[in-house]
């Protein structure tokens, strides 16, 4: 299991196109991947656009990405990197 935290810096947060990009990238890995706010217990499936949208992650939110599986380290790092990049909105 491998976890990383990243803060959303783009204006629209994890909504609309950024949410869609995030889920697409997550689906390209074999590992089971979840995300949650570090202060919350419940994590949601990162490969589910509906679950991601339901969380209402907005700009400034810190997200903890947890991956478990053969490519867990690469998966968590790639997703954190996508968040840091601002989804091309910067």
């Amino acid at each position, binding site marked *: 299991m491998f976890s990383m935290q990243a803060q959303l810096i783009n204006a629209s947060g994890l*909504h609309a196109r950024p949410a*869609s990009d995030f*889920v697409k990238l997550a689906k390209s890995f074999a590992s089971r991947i979840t995300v949650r706010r570090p202060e919350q217990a419940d994590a*949601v499936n990162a490969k*589910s*656009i509906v*679950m991601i*949208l*339901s969380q*209402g992650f907005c700009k400034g939110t810190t997200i903890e990405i947890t991956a478990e599986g053969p490519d867990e380290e690469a998966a968590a790092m790639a997703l954190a990197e996508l968040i840091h990049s601002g989804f091309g909105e910067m």
Partner: protein
Amino acid sequence: MDGASIRLTGIAVSGGIAFGHTFLYHPELPEIRCDRFETPPEPHIAAYEHSLHAAAEQLSGICRSLQARGRDAAQIFAAQLEILQDEEMDICVRGAIAEERLTAAAAVEQVYEQFAQLLAQTADPLIAARAADIRDIKLRLQRVLLGLESADLSLLPPGTVLVARDLFPSDTALLDPSCIAAIVTELGNQTSHTAILAKGLGIPAVLAVRGAMEAIPPHTVCAVDALSGEVFCRPEEALCVHLRSKQASFQEDALRQQKYRYRQAVTTDGVPIEIGVNIGGQNDDLASCDYCGLFRTEFLFLDRQILPDEQTQFAEYCRVVEQADGKLVTLRTLDIGGDKSVPCLPLPKEDNPFLGCRALRLTLNRRELFRSQLRAALRASAYGPMQILYPMVGSLTDFRRAKALTREVMRELDTEGVPYRRDIPLGIMIEIPSIALLADMAADEVDFASIGTNDLCQYLCAADRLNPAVAEYYETFSPAVLRCLREICRAFDRAGKPVSICGEMAGDTRAVKLLVGLGYRRLSMSSGQHAAVKAAICGFSLEEARVLAEKALACRTQEEVLRLLDEDRSCGSALLV
């Protein structure tokens, strides 16, 4: 069963005769019961997987078709495709089948409904609105699972005779008009949304056909005679021959009228009549008009899940102004409620929607919505001649409130240094009798008026124009309607202010001579009717029209008026020969 031909009748709109194959539009679905099974789950999982593939294929097909036609709605279906591939929902559905032993359709019902509610409860309205997408996909999967035909209007094969109980703007927004040979509906009439759409596109349509959905079999050869208002399923050969020859002479007439299409409409004694066009943002043709008498802005709100923002509206209004190329554009502010509802603006259900909170009444209540539209319209006015038309004005108080808000928005644009046309004319739709009776006072205050004869007639006659049971009471040619029209025209002529007619009556070739005789010099209709109306105007003199109008005003019943018009037409055509 097979072979027996079926004949149904209804109200003919938009003319023409067409042959095609029927498609029955059933947007609703039978209730999904919570069925459980005892057998191994594998076949149910396989059925679910099959439905996923089929739905994905349908959605990609719709996306491609809409993209090819340059339609924004393609995005909605691209987003639905993404939801269809949602891993969490997939896991849950499989779980519900394998563990709870629910049938695939019941499992989809349970899981998709649960996720839709999850989104509907979020605080962000943009995300909450996506719940509708989940429910839409749910229905798509269930249709496949129940072996029902897809209810998509965007993927119909060419030569389709579309049969429906009724068609809403949100349904028809997806239609590819080139594939629709004819339209048959159980509800509707001359002035309903479907009629206006069919006329604009020149598609033969027969509406108010009772029991059409039960009587007409799917995927059957069907002939639609929108001249007589008849629908024939499996027509016999002799009938086909007859219909084809009728179609040929109709086309000949249409061809003869086409010569007039791009000409100026002038009476035989040289009085020019300005011909306007009613447009709705799709398939608009402004080439044959003198001005745009009605730009319905509702279209922007139809095929989207969220309200269009100011910038989106501005871009669309600019596009229309540019397309008009110097011709005056009459932009009517949002006219929804009544028979028009839109998904992005859910409204409370009313017992009497036509007497309810619709059009201006609605936008005066939803100030932010109104402001963003007025801002977008005013900004676009800097790019070409435009006037703003408020729908559903019942009193001068209504007009003053709308005008005050428009002035407020103008001051806002002033402080921001945004350009707009300062002397933009502000006018009213006359469709409510209370303002029609005060036409002289209205003419003094407003810059112009446009008469919506459809609603004016329904309010004057107290007959719901969509209710087939009172169709005979909806009297377009009632002497009361004619007298009302004459008074409005006199009042505006005296005040020296422009008045035009933009209702269905303006495009009705039976009515044109009468309207000119009553004093109207501006008539606006869909571009499909231009050729026929101009041809009619070029066939009479103002003097003849005036005499006809005087006779009509002396009639005591609609029946007498119609008889008079029929006699006049047969005399006219006798002279032509």
